[in-house]
Structures are given as structure tokens and as C-alpha cells.
């Protein structure tokens, strides 16, 4: 009878020990991309815009992504790749527009966006 009790107890302990979830994967060792700061948008005629921004550590940045969203119905989001920390955008028409910029590291990790609306 003591053997029976031992078998029952052991089998239940084995059942108790089993779990269905494994350990979490390690976090990817990525270089945190610096978020652009001091993002300024200037224009003379609301057609051509001068954009500039700064980053804390430009050495880890491969390129920048510039998002342009014209504030009219059915206008698509335009994304441009910019190598430096300044850009000139010609809309062709005087339109209200919002710009956002982000940095992308050499591992293709994009930073958080910094946005500004044209004056």
C-alpha cells in the first residue's frame, strides 16, 4: 500500500512540475537609434520648405526617413530617404503639410518620430 501511495504522489508531483511555456527569447542586441531633436521647418512661400534637425550620435545613423503628409483629403503619405540632417521639399503648390523625421541605424532599426507642422 505504501508503494501505491508513493506512485500516486510521485505521478502527481511530476504532473505539477510540467509547464507549457519555455523561457522568453533574449532581447535583440540592437543599438538604440537616436530620436531627431531640434526639428525646424521654415518656408518663404508655403511651396518650398527647408527642414533641419539634430541627433545625439550621428555615427550610429545610416540614414533618415522624412515623412510628408499634406493635409488634404485622399493625399498619401510620402516617405523619402535623406542621408544628412537637412532637406529641402518642394510641394509644387501652397498646401498645409506636416513633416516627421526619424533616424535609421545600420541594423535597420528606426527611431521614434519627431514631427512638426509647417508654419
Amino acid at each position, binding site marked *: 500500500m505504501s508503494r501505491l501511495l508513493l506512485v500516486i504522489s510521485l505521478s502527481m508531483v511530476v504532473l505539477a512540475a510540467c509547464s507549457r*511555456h519555455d523561457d522568453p527569447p533574449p532581447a535583440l542586441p540592437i543599438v*538604440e537609434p537616436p530620436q531627431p531633436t531640434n526639428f525646424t521647418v521654415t518656408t518663404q512661400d508655403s511651396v518650398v520648405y527647408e527642414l533641419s534637425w539634430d541627433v545625439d550620435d550621428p555615427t550610429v545613423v545610416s540614414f533618415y526617413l522624412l515623412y510628408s503628409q499634406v493635409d488634404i483629403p485622399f493625399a498619401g503619405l510620402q516617405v523619402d530617404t535623406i542621408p544628412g540632417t537637412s532637406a529641402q521639399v518642394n510641394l509644387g503648390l501652397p498646401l498645409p503639410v506636416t513633416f516627421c523625421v526619424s533616424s535609421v541605424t545600420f541594423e535597420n532599426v528606426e527611431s521614434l518620430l519627431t514631427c512638426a507642422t509647417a508654419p
Partner: protein
Amino acid sequence: MAYQHTRSENSGQRGRRLVVVGLLVVLTTVVHGQAFAGETGALVRSLLIPGLGQAHQGHYTRASVYAGTAIISGFGILLSQVHYNQSVDRYDIAKSVYAGYVEDLENGEIVNVGDLNASYDEVIAAWNEAEDRLVWRNVFLVTFIATYTVNLVDVLISKPYKLDPDERLAIDVNRERFLVVKTIKF
């Protein structure tokens, strides 16, 4: 001819089933008769349901404690297992989303650091939740195991409750009334 062959096969199967059912009935009757009689009966009852053997022996308080603990911990096992399964599903989904971002990066696609960090935070949160719920599941399971084991040991070492002569039913009759006296011990 084929029809007759099928018919005889069917009747043969039916006969075999009847024999098996009959054997089971006889076996159950024999085992039931032997297993549920005397002190072995108490053990078999406690093997089936915790506390039932103690009730058979006349220890009703202990029987209630074992049965109550077993029922509560049994429901606890079921509920915590369901919750644990839900959190494991959440963890698996979070892990696959994060693995998708990692795969995108390996394929040269651009991944936003906010999405990447948020998905990894979700993986860790889901894993922590699964760990917590696993602990609860195991607490209920260990409680159930302990109750079941103690219940079996108890029924093995306990002797059936015998009525004390002092506890017997007594009737005190007066001219105007009568009292029925019964002493109960726990």
C-alpha cells in the same frame, strides 16, 4: 450468400459484446462486493473520493474536511489551469510577433524601435503572467495531492468509529413529557 455472411458476422460480434458486458457485470459485482466491504471498503472509498472512507468509518468531521478541501482544490486546479492556458496562448502570440520583427530585421526591412520594444515588453509581461498562474496551478495541485495522500494515510491508520455505551439513545419519560437524549461526539 454475401448477405448471409455479413449477417452471421454481425451476430457473432453481438454475441462477443454480450459476453464482454456480462463479464464486466460479474467482475464489477464481485469487486464491488469485496472491495466495498469492511475496512478495505473504507480504503477503496477514499481512493475514489477523498473523505468517503472516513464517512464509511463514521468520522464525519474528518470526512467533511477532506472532501471540502479536495473539492475546493480540485476546482482551483481547473480554474487556474484554464487561466494558465490563456496566458500561455498570450505568451505564444507575443513571442511570434516579436519573432516576426526579428525576421523582418534579418531580411533587411526597417523596424521601428517603438514597435520592437513594445513587442518585447509584451513577451516579458505575458511570460511573467504565465509564471504567476503556473504557481497558482501548482499550489492547488499540491494541496490536492496532500489532501488525497493524507486522506489515504488517515483511512489506513484509523479504526471505525464505535458507539460508546454512554452515547446510546436514551428516553426519559415523565408524567407530562418525555425526552429523547442522544449524545454526539466528533
